[in-house]
């Protein structure tokens, strides 16, 4: 964001945090989460806070409101917002600031809206509650903001319930809500992380424009460097609750000083070794003319593709494109209406309940949310050991040895991890355990459903490398479902692009990333944020002239 022309009026300091220290409680002991951070924010400035999960960026963001999560406490430093000392302010004084002068936009709008109330009622609650305006005035303002945020049908969309609008629209409705009282400071906590690329770009553009229009200051928290490059004037890199580096966006992107920052920048460098073509052998999995439906709603239309031994096929598309449904058909959770799935040229029964143990064993699945994919009440020993015992009938020492072997395979130290519960693991470790559980069945084929999208980049990178290594060692085939094109580029041999239940493009990875593309592939590819701080401006300019944006907002 290059608002040099505004700099004169913006020099006034809005928020100043000095030597901020925050403790968190676990097992009756206080651990320092934030270890002395200084943040200065001027009016109209956008500050990007980045770092991997656990770096303390969200905690620092919330502290700007004088708020800490339950089980945390501010142990030192000062927080001064526009001359008000938030450390000594009473709860009542802080409550008057929140929502009015400081607003917060959470990562998951879907979880942050009350599902029982209409959007516009939730919008007007804040200004009415704080006595800023009447209900009618607030509703009129909401419609205006909905329009500015490019929501479709701004006059009526507010009368819908949260579940009646899409995720991207909900995130924008939440931004509108944050703007209800025209705050001086807005804290965005990963507002686009849960969205797919084409939706993300719309939200990014509208958020940035609206922040500029109201000349609000913002703290933008994310783990996505390319996103922060588009949004922020200044970037702070955090790690383990400490500041690593701070600089202007341009300087930071062009010339990071610290080693850690460089590794963050270099993360996207992973590239799988090119493998040969597979057309000569017979495919491991063949999906033949599959049409599938949820009740009367057809979600897959005549899909066909092959997956060969040792090959990674990436399936790309935005949410609702049918890519996860394709996986459900292969695993047998959703029997196809027409067509069939063949494994080694033998047709599989459509329903998983009719498949033999061996047929089930050969196709394993790794899920997006490792949190819900492992039973929180089982120890790692049981999570990994069960498939081994179930499919291969191992017992006692043999079983124990196999579990240790699998843990070693996923680079977790057996003696440390075997007796832990999933709650005692980090997100990346949990995902590794899920991989081990899939491997325990000794499969030939693994479906990876958005396995890295819930993880931050460094951890995701580790998972991708692990999957790649395992593929080479064990000759596994992967079906990799994702909406992240950087991941696709990194690991896939073949790419399938899906749109509205149909395959729109299908080909080797290298070909996919070289033009000419199908129009939709082009939209997907161009929506992936790049590190260049001026990328978003350039793209918007290009789309405005070509009119591509229309198709993005209607899809």
């Amino acid at each position, binding site marked *: 964001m290059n608002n040099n022309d505004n700099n004169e009026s913006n020099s006034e300091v809005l928020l100043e945090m000095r030597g901020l220290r925050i403790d968190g409680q*676990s097992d009756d002991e206080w651990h320092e989460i934030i270890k002395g951070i200084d943040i200065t924010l001027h009016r109209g400035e956008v500050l990007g806070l980045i770092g*991997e999960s656990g770096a303390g960026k969200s905690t620092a963001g919330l502290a700007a409101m004088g708020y800490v999560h*339950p*089980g945390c406490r501010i142990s030192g430093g000062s927080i001064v917002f526009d001359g008000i000392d938030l450390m000594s302010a009473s709860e009542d004084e802080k409550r008057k600031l929140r929502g009015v002068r400081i607003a917060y936009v959470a990562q998951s709008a879907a979880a942050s809206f009350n599902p029982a109330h209409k959007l516009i009622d939730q919008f007007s609650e804040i200004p009415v509650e704080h006595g800023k305006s009447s209900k009618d005035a607030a509703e009129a303002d909401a419609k205006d903001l909905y329009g500015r945020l490019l929501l479709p049908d701004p006059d009526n969309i507010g009368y819908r319930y949260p579940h009646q609008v899409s995720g991207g629209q909900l995130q924008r409705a939440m931004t509108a809500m944050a703007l209800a009282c025209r705050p001086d400071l807005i804290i965005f906590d990963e507002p686009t992380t849960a969205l797919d690329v084409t939706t993300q770009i719309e939200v990014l553009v509208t958020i940035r424009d609206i922040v500029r229009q109201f000349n609000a200051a913002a703290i933008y928290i994310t783990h996505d460097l390319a996103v922060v490059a588009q949004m922020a004037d200044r970037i702070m890199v955090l790690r383990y609750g400490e500041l690593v580096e701070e600089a202007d966006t341009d300087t930071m992107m062009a010339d990071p000083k610290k080693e850690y920052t460089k*590794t963050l920048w*270099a*993360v996207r460098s*992973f590239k799988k070794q090119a493998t040969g073509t597979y057309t000569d052998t017979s495919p491991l999995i063949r999906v033949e003319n599959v049409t599938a439906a949820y009740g009367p709603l057809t979600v897959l239309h005549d899909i066909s593709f092959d997956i060969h031994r040792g090959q990674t096929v990436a399936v790309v598309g935005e949410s609702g494109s049918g890519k996860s449904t394709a996986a459900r058909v292969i*695993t*047998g*959770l959703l029997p196809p209406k027409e067509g069939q799935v063949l494994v080694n040229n033998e047709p599989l029964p459509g329903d*998983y309940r009719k*498949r033999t*143990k061996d047929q*089930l064993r050969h196709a394993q*699945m790794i*899920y997006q*949310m490792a*949190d*819900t*994919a*492992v*039973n*929180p*009440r*089982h120890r790692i020993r049981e999570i990994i050991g*069960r*498939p081994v015992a*179930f*499919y291969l009938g191992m017992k006692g020492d043999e079983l124990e040895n196999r579990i240790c072997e699998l843990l070693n395979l996923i*680079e*977790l*130290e057996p003696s*440390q991890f075997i*007796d*832990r519960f999933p*709650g*005692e*693991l*980090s997100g*990346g*470790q949990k995902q590794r355990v899920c991989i081990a*559980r899939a491997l325990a*069945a000794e499969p030939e084929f693994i479906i990876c459903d958005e396995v890295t999208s819930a993880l931050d980049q*460094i*951890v995701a*990178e*580790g998972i991708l*490398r692990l999957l790649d*290594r395992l593929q080479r060692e064990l000759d596994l085939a992967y079906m990799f479902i994702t909406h992240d094109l950087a991941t696709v580029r990194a690991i896939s041999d073949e790419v399938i692009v899906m749109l509205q239940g149909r395959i729109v493009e299908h080909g080797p990875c290298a070909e996919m990333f070289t033009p000419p593309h199908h129009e939709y592939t082009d939209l997907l590819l161009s929506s992936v944020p790049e590190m260049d701080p001026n990328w978003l401006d350039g793209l918007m300019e290009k789309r405005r002239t070509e009119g591509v944006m229309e198709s993005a907002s209607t899809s």
Partner: protein
Amino acid sequence: MSDPVETTVGQTADAVPPPPPRQRRLADAWRELKKAPMSAKFGLVVIVGYVFVALFAPVLTPFGESEIVGAEFEEWGTVGAEGKQFILGTDNLGRDMLTRLLYGARNTIGIAFVTTCLAFLIGGVAGILAAALAGWVDQALSRFVDILMAIPALIFALLLLTIFGTSIPVLIVIIAVLDSTRVFRLARAVSLNVVVMDFVEAARLRGEGIGWITIREVLPNIMPPMVAEFGLRFCFVFLTIAALSFLGLGIQPPTADWGSMVRDNATLITYGDVTPLLPAAAIALLTVGVNFVVDWFLHKTSGLRDEQ
């Protein structure tokens, strides 16, 4: 893989302190207990006291359970024919009140406990099965439970007891079945949230049978609400038995039981004597104690959920 980024991953992602060894789990439980709030400690002491009394009633009591030892309605502290004092007086048939109170603990608590366990066995299993199998199994079970719940429980129990007679096994089965409808509702509701989780889907895709899914995958995850419900349900069963006994269809004389003891000595209330309220107070104290412990347990488990 030996390139630098991979090692960074290992350090950042895997830097979690090692877990406590297994032997320390008992010590952890003890430490947890010491940290418990006063109310929970009080509740635990009450429960332990009741269990102790229930187990050792024959040793603790001066007289036999249904032994007539003196005149009717003796006052507190009267000395009987054998030179032993009736600390709490005697009841309407001249039996020692204290003795019957202690034996009452044994009978009422024991029967209530067995009944509650049975109710949870029936309701819990049926509830999880209904959630896990869905479809017509769920429909059949749920509608059957609806029918049972449509009839007021106490009246239904009275009806069934009149039909099947009033022996203790019949009493246990009838109350257990009627109470299992409530347990079924809860078990089904919480299980529905669990069966949609990916790990249950993973277990299904692995080819696991319904038994494994019910007991190993779903049950451990619904334990906190179920245990809390167990505490509350135990009190309700307790009160139901007492109510039935008061109405004459519960535990039959001469077996000592708090509900029937209130009824037997009810005439004394007219004279301003508190003796008939003692069994009622015993019930109240236990109910309060159990609920303190349940509250503490609920608080603890909900606190754990916040951390995740």
